[in-house]
């Protein structure tokens, strides 16, 4: 059995921390403290709605960056 060389852990740790921040912003307490209001409207959407979409996009971008940097080497 030939073990492949272990890939560095830091991209995963950094990605997990980033996702943790995004996730906290979408549930209590992050959402309740910072995102729960109607105004200002953003592109016609109430703030609480735009807040959710913004963090979903942030998580998507984070995943794209992680995939670009570590994806080919990451073995799951």
């Amino acid at each position: 059995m030939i073990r492949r060389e272990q890939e560095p852990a830091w991209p995963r740790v950094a990605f997990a921390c980033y996702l943790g921040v995004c996730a906290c912003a979408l549930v209590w307490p992050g959402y309740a403290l910072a995102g729960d209001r109607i105004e200002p409207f953003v592109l016609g959407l109430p703030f609480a709605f735009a807040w959710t979409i913004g963090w979903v996009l942030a998580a998507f971008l984070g995943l794209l960056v992680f995939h670009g940097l570590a994806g080919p080497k990451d073995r799951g």
Partner: protein
Amino acid sequence: MSDSRIVVGIAAVYLVACLVIGMLPGRRASDSAEGYVAGDRTLGPLVMFFITGATIFSAFAFLGMPGKAYSQGAWAFMVLAYGAFGFIPFYFLGPRAARLGREYGFVTQGQMVAHRFHSLPIPGVMALISAGAFVPYLAIQIKGAGYVLNSMTQGAVSEQVGGAIVYGVVLVYVLKSGVLGVGWTNTFQGIFMMVLAWAMGLYLPYALYGGVGEMFRRIAEERPELLRAPGLGPDGAQGSWGEYTSAVIVTSIGFSAWPHLFMKAFTARSEATIRRTVVLYPIFSIFLVPILLIGFSGVLFEPAPAQADQILPHMLMSIELSPWIVGLFCAGALAASMSSGDAIVHACSSILVRDGWITALGRKLDTHAERRLIRYLIVVLLGASYGLAFHYEGSLFDLLLYAYGPVVQFMPAVVAALYIRRATGPGVLAGLVVGVSVNILFAVCPDLRPFALHAGLYGFVANVAALALVSAVTRREIDGEERYLAVAAGDDVREPSS
């Protein structure tokens, strides 16, 4: 041509197109259970993307989400959150599962877990839990399809007959083509739904209020409570942050544990295909935004529908719209129902045969007999779901949350199998049984919960605790464990040539 004939004509053309697209791949797949269940492991990135997208774009998305936004406002935002995060664990789990599937020939999630622990009861328990989650969900797809056909024919076709017609088409192409038929129809239906979602999501606020911004300004003046997180509860009072947060956590963890997602990982052509699918998956979440706009556009709409889940078809049939638009919408809603229903019925019957009949009960079947049994079960499951469909009266959204309670219990078992060396078969089995029991207890008797949190979260915590405890006291070396974990990790396990 009269308006109703145009509407029905569009739906009829759509159903025939699904039938043709769904049946063609059946000519290419090998005549084996492997070809029928796992598509001979040939699914490429485009088909893989849409077949997994169908998990979120179901009748629930087209009918349940607008209903939730209409009746409970910001509570419906949770779907965006779990849609964005829920598939990320699969970025890591999926490639491991795919490697194991190629090496050992797995086609179901239960086989994968059972092989690691040499346990026969585990796949049997997982098959039962899967059926408990899948059948009611399939029933809602059938009910949704029946409702759409009933609305578009203005009552000429009953919900029961409508559901039977649509799922008759699904039955034909799933029986004929297996997973390849599901994949190609999901691709066709997924593109169709995305176009429809944006068109209707932008058109309805414009037609009723003059634009999205104006619509929300009016709702902010007249119903501001709908635009504040976490929205309203089912009783119309202010929603609970505990319920909202725990529902997001349970659905986000449970999303990557659905058994049919693993079956799709086993069908993928490569690990890169799985990773690319996960990376692009949040696009489906973004495509849910216009569906929420549709729901909000109904908030100030008069007259109100009889049920919140009926808000979209109710508005379409109440305002002056071109029959071509109504017809296309109805075909889109059918697409949403069918693309989830076909994948679910195919997955559920394959799991019951492979994990329940063959692995847990130890029955021997040759490949053609297995394929035949899966087909019989597809008919049985559709029949059972059809019967259930017209007895269920709750909301589609709440049913979805119910389904995640059992499904999230699979995650500890999957992670234990793929990563944790100290986990044992009795530990995983104890976790599954305890987790599902706690979930059922609190789902049936919500007043017993210490705090107002999703029943699945209590089950999940109990599951992890039972798995850890029982594994600690039953730990022993398991044959083949080293090799299994090495294959999962992508190590080269071939014997060196002398």
